[in-house]
């Protein structure tokens, strides 16, 4: 089987390490990245999170939850012609920021939002 490029990044326990493994650089916050996530998630097992951006030349989008045991949750590769907009549902162990990272024109841009989790979704 093929190993996703992000394989070892998913095993990191620190969000900054995971981002470093994945991209080898850091992201700067951008108001062109719109992150949509609930303020309060009653069930951390299913948290709907989506992102859209007006940035051009987007090649990947990733979702990071720093308070999860493994912060990198999902990494999406967007070939040319695919719109820079993704919706998915993630698990959150407890209240945490959610960071979305958009790779556009070879640079990284991020948006962050805190989601309060009432019942955690990772067990333990």
């Amino acid at each position, binding site marked *: 089987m093929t190993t*996703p490029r992000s394989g070892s990044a998913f095993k990191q326990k620190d969000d900054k390490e995971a981002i470093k493994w994945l991209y080898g650089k850091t992201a700067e916050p951008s108001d062109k990245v719109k992150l949509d996530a609930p303020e309060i998630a009653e069930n951390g097992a*299913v948290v709907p999170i989506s992102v859209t951006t007006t940035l051009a030349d987007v090649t990947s989008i990733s979702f990071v939850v720093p308070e999860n045991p493994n912060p*990198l949750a*999902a990494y*999406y*590769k*967007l070939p040319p012609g*695919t719109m820079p907009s993704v*919706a998915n549902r993630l698990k959150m162990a407890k209240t945490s920021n959610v960071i979305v990272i958009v790779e556009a024109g070879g640079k990284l841009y991020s948006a962050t939002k805190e989601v309060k989790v009432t019942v955690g979704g990772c067990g333990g």
Partner: protein
Amino acid sequence: MASSIRVRAIANGETTDVQTLIQHPMDSGFVSDDKGEFIPAHFIQELIFEYDGRKVFVADWGTAVAKDPYVKFSFKGGNKGGELKVSWIDNKGATDTATVKIQ
């Protein structure tokens, strides 16, 4: 066996909107069962969408994607009646594939 993949692709002007729901436990490996033993991690690692022989969307997933994963995206260049192929592989090597016509 019924497919684990439910996918709907709808042409919407220039773009095709794709919504997918997959039946999969997405066990994180951090949850224990009734006997207090950890349920081993079992999760989809890669989900690929192909149209007309080219990849239009590739998801690399970790264990924090929710059970029975949902994902939504859009791409340009799809035509009504064209076939979108969806396939996934999990960390145990299991796979599934489905093909849907763009509506």
